[in-house]
């Protein structure tokens, strides 16, 4: 299957480490576009801060819209477990809005990234360039 990679890219896997500061000024759709454009180029996108639940929902929705046979079959996404949601009270959410809780998120093309291990402090991923 042809892979979603940039033919002009050097041999290797590009990793985009996106700071929370870079994401801070973006709208939800701009964040999703930033992620998916990188993934379409075959890059691994690592977000210093995760997405809000609403943004995660939209990321899945937009990803589905862009899946195409023989070209792009979706994403792998791994995030450290969110801090205990039982402690996320309604008041806390109202006060804090839907801000992502500083959790690192790794996103990559489904055909290139395989999660080997994940726990609360470590995400171990195998990335292949096919």
């Amino acid at each position, binding site marked *: *299957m042809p892979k979603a990679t940039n033919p002009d890219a050097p041999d290797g896997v590009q990793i985009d480490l996106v700071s929370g500061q870079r994401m801070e000024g973006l709208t939800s759709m701009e964040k999703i576009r930033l992620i998916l454009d990188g993934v379409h180029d075959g890059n691994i996108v690592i977000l210093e801060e995760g997405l*809000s*639940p*609403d943004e*995660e*929902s*939209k990321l*899945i*929705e*937009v*990803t*589905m*819209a862009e*899946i195409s*046979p023989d070209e792009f*079959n*979706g*994403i*792998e*996404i*791994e*995030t450290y*477990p*969110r801090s*205990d*949601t*039982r*402690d*996320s*009270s*309604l008041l806390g*959410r109202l006060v804090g809005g*839907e801000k992502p809780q500083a959790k690192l998120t790794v996103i990559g093309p*489904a*055909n290139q990234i395989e*999660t080997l291990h994940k726990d609360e402090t470590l995400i171990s991923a195998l990335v292949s360039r096919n």
Partner: protein
Amino acid sequence: MGLLKGLKDSISRATDRLFSEQEPKRIGIYGPPNAGKTTLANRIARDWTGDAIGTESHIPHETRRARRKENVEIERNGKTVTIDIVDTPGVTTKVDYEEFTDEMNKDDAVRRSREATEGVAEAMHWLREDVDGVIYVLDSAKDPITQVNTMLIGIIESRDLPVLIFANKIDLDESSVKRIEDAFPQHKTVALSAKEGENMDEVYDNIAEYFG
């Protein structure tokens, strides 16, 4: 917040949200592919209306468009609750048509994957806009701690939707309901076998309590 208080608050939220309204509540049946969502939806629909909702299959993404069964009246303990059941496609972040080529030719596999992606996108959109409560179905024979499950439960919680977790397929030897309870202790988990009809009384009691 303690576990018991969390559960109590969750039930209280569900009651507060729904109690005052008389119209049917749209209850979305969500979960990963092949968890038994359509089997459960059919079981509920058949038990209370006599009709099924959709086709069941072992092939992932058999349900590719959300399907709704309206005005399902469930009577429990002398009280009748009316819900619309929305059976949704299994949520995933990837769909590869090659997964289906063992079962069908390439054109059909491509068509199936396209329909599946549209269905998942629609289900995600509805989750943000159009459901009043969620039944989250998991295969109790599989590890529930996956990124999709964690994300989906987080999305549901962020919308403050009442949610019941159904640990399905307890008829399988490898089933472990405790594994699901341990993964999502903040929510009520109900064990069942939608295929065999096991424990459906408790299923309906809980649907009535949470969504009635």
